[in-house]
């Protein structure tokens, strides 16, 4: 039943990984700081760049988990 539902484009709990992406990206107080620096780059910049890569991995995870 759950599998059939999934195949018909229903909800999957894996989609919560998308919610995580949204919440972090859209909550500036979380990353609007200079420290800690990484090779001279303030946190604000390197964290958001790193978050792109994390999100790509999260999306790939959802892809593999929900693809049949």
């Amino acid at each position, binding site marked *: 039943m759950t599998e059939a539902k999934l195949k*018909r*484009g229903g909800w999957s709990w894996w989609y919560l990984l*998308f919610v995580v*992406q949204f919440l972090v990206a859209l909550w500036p107080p979380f990353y609007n700081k*200079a420290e800690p620096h990484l090779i*001279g780059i303030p946190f604000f910049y390197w964290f958001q760049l790193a978050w792109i*890569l994390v*999100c*790509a991995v999260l*999306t790939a995870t959802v892809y593999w988990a929900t693809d049949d």
Partner: protein
Amino acid sequence: MADVNWVALSVFLALFGFVSWLGFAAARWRKGDLDQLHEWGLGGRRFGTVVTWFLVGGDLYTAYTFIAVPALAFGAGAIAFFAVPYTVIIYPLLFLVFRRLWYVCHKRGYITAGDFVRGRFGNRWLALAITVTGIVATMPYIALQLVGIQVVIGALGVGGSGLFGELPLLIAFLVLAAFTYSSGLRAPASIAIVKDVLIYITAIAAIIVIPAELGGFGKIFAAVPAQKLLLAAPGEHTTGAYGSYATLALGSALALFLYPHSLTAILSASSGRAIRRNAALLPGYSFMLGLLALLGFFVIAAGVHDLPAYAAGFKKFGNNFAVPALLLQSFPPWFVGIAFAAIGIGALVPAAIMSIAAANLYTRNIHREFINKNPTDKQEAQNAKWVSLLVKLGALVFILFVPTKYAIQLQLLGGIWMIQTLPAVMLGAYTRWFNAWALLVGWAVGTFVGTSMAIATNLQNTYPLSIGSYTFPGYTAVYTVVLNVVLAAVLTPICNRLAGRDQADETRASDYHEAPGA
């Protein structure tokens, strides 16, 4: 302007010539009958994961983006980085919502958002509203791509004043128009591959070489004024810069895939699986865009804007000259040629896709709906080809005779207009609950209020919404699309009672996902 940079110009012209040839040759790539609209306008829906990656990447991350985002970082600082959360949250939307749209469009032979809305809601006036919004929002976007070409041509030292000075732009545009006409979407798809490789080379070189020349990232960020380095922490009773940053990211993300050129690129994919894979692979471009945004700070650290050699360029193109000036200052002429070609060719790809998308919209949802109801396949494809020329001509005239700042302001308004199609298109992908007339009223009010708010703030993209003693500065598009959705929801029961529940919906629930066994 400075003297002509011959070495850079030669490399630039060689690469430009190569992609022009490629654009024409593309007609024979994965050959199809170009007298059919879905062959000309969607490349036959035949692109797999890899080509889709290049095509969507080349389409969304435009030349103008690569010039404007660093220019904003240079001028305004940290706020420019909203492009990063923006490009983070578009991919879950692609994965979930636009996958459904891909399936239903594939199943029903839809080519545009207007086609989908027409089929889903059975209301041609709502489809017309979606169509007109798409075309009107796309026109200034095409014009902005030309600004990208203009800036690099200017930076190469070519061109002077008056119409004669615009001759290089005119030639570039004629070539673009000709290969789009003859090859359709196959042209930008093949050119996108070349363009993206060049852009990646440029971005990687810039992010390694320039910091080394300037003494490391520590020194670069030390040169950035403190108030530009981070978002200003909000004061009391306001969400301040945080609200602006988050809503700019959210609103831009929600609007992005509603743009006709985005949907055209998505629909040209050969499978829903190619779309989902790309949701995980396309962030590669976001990462590069984030790196390129840092170039704005490199410009500050290198002090390029104070060098007399670039004064004329900054005067003519404003902050948009920041990146070209930095590249000229940091790289040998031959590499400048490659980098500028990346930007110039980077303008051709989206400009071609945008004009194809606008042509598809006109042909399907205006001409076929209101003028000639039963065109032959050949007539339909021919019609679209001519309209694609007309659209580009319009953009060219615009950029030659109207100051650039109006194109930028119109593009900004375009985002506010485009997002008003969200209830019909994105919510429509999930539910047929809304009444078409209620959606139309929501669209009209959202468009009107959004435009008024933008004019009231002197065409800023954020509006300081006041509730009691609190102020919430935020992207106008987000505020007005909320109004739009609420209005459509409230009016739906009322419209159902007045006009009768209109059940016309030619799509079925099974159209929105992979067919079993497929």
